[in-house]
């Protein structure tokens, strides 16, 4: 046997050993009653056809390989951006374990979050007791400065009323009466993680600005010169927020980042465990009401939050995950207009460098076809950048994008000669993408880690940009916003293009006549 106690083989090698290969073969032919190989191959080939694509797109009920996550994930993302804040998800604990592992796998950091651990009896009698006990335990065990409550589907289905529950819990002494417990209802059967982000952020701001659920007076806005900045749900939050702060500091803008999770998801290895780190202070969150304006980097992540802020008298501006020269120009111009601060020479230089880098490499990206999927804002931002580079974003797909989003993308495509043969697919999933890649092949695919299955099936090389990225490390530490961020995205795209050229020419004595050192 190839497997022995002296030399135990791991999974990479074990089943490649002849005994196993033979055993699987035997098992298959003798016991599995398999279809003939030609039939299997035939079906595989058939899934690559236009006929299959039409059937695939005619799907009405089933979603296969969705490119989206649930609301509470977004709620947790927003909550950890505030100082010493413990996200508390009212509902079943299994969901919460998912959020924690999801973030840990992406950010390579511990991710603290608790649930009210509702069980069957809670589902029957309501989750009030779980809330009362849960808040008390979390408060005493983890010493947070704030607990931000959101919900899983279970609590939503039985109709638990967070406002009332939290009030009762405070009356029962779970947490002190003045302790901040903002909340948001975040059912996963509505919207996606970006909706949850929106709801949770709105819940937190409403809590501080509008009288903490009727327990104090609402704040009276006394406008100052600051601006608020909201990043939205963003896998590059660590790098992006640091970059945005650097840009604002260079411009001399006074600002408040609402939901700054760049510290808690990038803590140093110095022997100390930081359950909480950095974040928008509660005072800053409250005082943010006085700002003269609020900027959101992701329109579809702040569909409810921004109007709420506007109602408080702010001027608001929303962007769609700006990437590249023109998008960053617009962002900086708007910040400059809102704050009256000039754009300094240092940023003008960075801009020139990005333009220079794009020009240096333009020939390699020009005319290349890309398929792209991700959150609606990111799709818009990256597609605009691709158009700027002279690439053709042939398929643009967002499972959590709606028809209005689709129309917005289409308008952008129509405005560019490079968008002529491109199509937008709101509400579709990655199995749809698979058909698209087979029937209308592209040169590269941009998406998150789950795109690797599409790469495996269709052979389309995957450029990993998005959330989550589980199988490549540390990209979240690099910004994709600002001119510096645009440079990073450019480099990632180029790296893949050159890797592909190398891959196609690397076979010794066969294709390596074009395996060149200069590209």
């Amino acid at each position, binding site marked *: 046997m190839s497997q022995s106690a002296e030399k135990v083989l791991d999974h990479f090698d074990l089943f490649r050993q002849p005994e196993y290969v033979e055993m699987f073969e035997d098992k298959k032919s003798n016991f599995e009653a398999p279809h003939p190989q030609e039939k299997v191959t035939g079906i595989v080939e058939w899934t690559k056809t236009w006929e299959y694509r039409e059937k695939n797109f005619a799907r009405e009920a089933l979603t296969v390989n969705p490119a989206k996550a649930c609301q509470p994930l977004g709620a947790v993302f927003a909550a950890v951006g505030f100082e010493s804040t413990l996200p508390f998800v009212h509902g079943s604990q299994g969901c919460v374990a998912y959020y924690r592992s999801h973030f840990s796998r992406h950010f390579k950091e511990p991710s603290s979050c608790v649930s009210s651990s509702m069980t069957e009896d809670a589902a029957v009698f309501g989750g009030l007791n779980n809330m009362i006990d849960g808040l008390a335990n979390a408060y005493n065990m983890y010493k947070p400065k704030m607990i931000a409550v959101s919900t899983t589907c279970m609590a939503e289905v039985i109709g638990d009323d967070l406002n009332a529950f939290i009030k009762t819990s405070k009356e029962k002494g779970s947490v002190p009466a003045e302790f901040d417990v903002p909340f948001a209802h975040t059912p996963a059967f509505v919207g996606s993680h970006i909706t949850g982000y929106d709801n949770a952020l709105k819940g937190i701001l409403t809590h501080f600005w509008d009288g903490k659920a009727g327990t104090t007076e609402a704040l009276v806005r006394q406008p100052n010169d600051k601006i608020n900045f909201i990043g939205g749900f963003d896998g590059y939050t660590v790098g992006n927020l640091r970059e945005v702060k650097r840009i604002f500091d260079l411009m001399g803008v006074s600002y408040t980042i609402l939901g700054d999770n760049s510290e808690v998801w990038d803590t140093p290895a110095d022997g100390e465990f930081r359950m909480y780190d950095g974040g928008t202070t509660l005072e800053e969150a409250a005082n943010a009401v006085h700002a003269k304006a609020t900027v959101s980097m992701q329109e579809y992540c702040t569909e409810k939050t921004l109007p709420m802020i506007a109602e408080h008298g702010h001027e608001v501006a929303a962007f769609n995950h700006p990437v590249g*020269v*023109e998008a960053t*120009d*617009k962002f*900086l*111009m708007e910040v*400059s207009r809102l704050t009256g601060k*000039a*754009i300094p020479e240092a940023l*003008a230089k960075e*801009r*020139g460098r990005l*333009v*220079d880098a*794009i*020009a*240096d490499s*333009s*020939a390699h990206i*020009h*005319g290349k076809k890309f398929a792209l999927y991700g959150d609606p804002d990111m799709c818009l931002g990256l597609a605009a950048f691709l*158009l*700027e*580079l*002279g690439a053709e974003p042939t398929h643009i797909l967002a499972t959590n994008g709606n028809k209005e989003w689709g129309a917005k993308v289409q308008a952008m495509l129509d405005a*560019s*000669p*490079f968008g002529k043969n491109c199509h937008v697919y709101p509400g579709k999933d990655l199995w749809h993408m698979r058909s698209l890649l087979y029937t209308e092949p592209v040169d590269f695919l941009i998406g998150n880690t789950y795109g690797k299955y599409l790469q495996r099936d269709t052979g389309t090389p995957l450029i990993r940009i998005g959330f989550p990225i589980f199988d490549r490390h540390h990209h979240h530490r690099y910004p994709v916003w600002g001119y510096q961020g645009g440079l990073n995205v450019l480099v990632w795209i180029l790296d893949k293009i050159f890797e592909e050229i190398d891959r196609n020419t690397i076979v*010794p*004595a066969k294709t*390596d*006549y*074009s395996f*060149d*050192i*200069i*590209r």
Partner: protein
Amino acid sequence: MDALSKKVQEVFDEPACGKNQGKSEKERKKGCTKQLQPGAAAGGCAFDGAKIALQPITDVAHLVHGPIACEGNSWDNRGAKSSGSRLYRTGFTTDINELDVVYGGEKRLYKSVKEIIDKYDPPAIFVYQTCVTALIGDDIEAVCKAASQKFGKPVIPVNAPGFVGSKNLGNKLAGEALLDHVIGTQEPDYLTPYDINIIGEYNLAGELWQVKPLLDEMGVRILSCISGDAKYREVAYSHRAKAAMMVCSKAMINIARKMEERYEIPFFEGSFYGITDMSDSLRQIAKLLVDKGAPDELLARTERIIAREEARFWQRMEPFKDRLKGIKVLLITGGVKSWSVVAALQEVGMEIVGTSVKKSTLEDKQKIKELMGEDAHMIEDMTPREMYKMLKDAQADIMLSGGRSQFVALKAKMPWLDINQERHHAYAGYEGMVKLVEEIDNSLHNPVWEQVRKPAPWDNPFLEVMAAPGSLSPALEAAA
């Protein structure tokens, strides 16, 4: 006078060089290479010239005798493609150290040759002299001779240390090395009346392969290409060809001329760039072969191929004509013959506003004048600053040049296309011309140029005007 100076002198006095013929005896003695101006940016050295001329010979080991700098910086830096061996891409150097400088590097060189033979057993080894080893007096010719005898294998000295002169001189010294030690040393298995040499073609980006199918169709055999995609043996028996085509006008003229003298192989200067030149070259090849005894019907066959290919080319050009008409091009080329590219671009309706003639011969310049008119803007030697200015003043829409000028073009916000040795697209032949035009079209219409030419939006007063109508300054209002 030592052997090297004699060789250099001889190469300078090239009778087939038009420029040389016009000189007085004294001038001729001084040599055709302009003395480099200390402090001014310059091109490559003689070593580099020799190395790039011979490096495309694919199955030999190219051993650089010198400190790491020479091979370290030149290792595999050209896109000369091979259909067979990849040995030419392996970087071999003696990488001499301080002690070698003191005690001499000949022993190390000899051992290196031995180790190459033991490990790789190539059909030949080319040994390149460099500045340091030449200065300390290493006699590579003696070492090569001893090694050849000892190991029974050609070990070819390429005596072109960097300090003797320019890259172009190095090209010629490389040619001399082939003439002295390689050409005529072997015999081909069989001969045909259709055997030709192509001299000065390096198969960059596989260009030779774009031309070869047409030669195949004509029934012409490339007996030897010097040196693109060449095998040692092919170069060694190249003296049996019936005729030769000389591709790069200045690099290897000495090879073509001496082969004509020694082996009676007539040659013509031609180019694979551009439609007229390509067709002319095919015609000339056929004509020379027929003159040397090939059957007459080759001429008619060639004409049929030319007619078909030209028709196909113009048909493929249709979609570009509107897009490229009147586009102004600045052409800065090194090795590629300027005039051949000029003709090619004019054929698709583009306008050449200037071309470099740094390495062009008198004859080349005459051809450029014929093509571009008497007041052709010929640039003898352009500094990056001048180049920048010319581009910046928007006298051109696009620059075609080698990789080193790319960055000047970009800083001047000008579309740019690589047509030198580092390019990845083959532009030779009818097929290559389509590719070149496609690439120019792509480059011109890349959206980045719009971005490059636009100032940052905050630098643009008109943007503010647009953003806030009614806020025109009095001056602007008057202008409006």
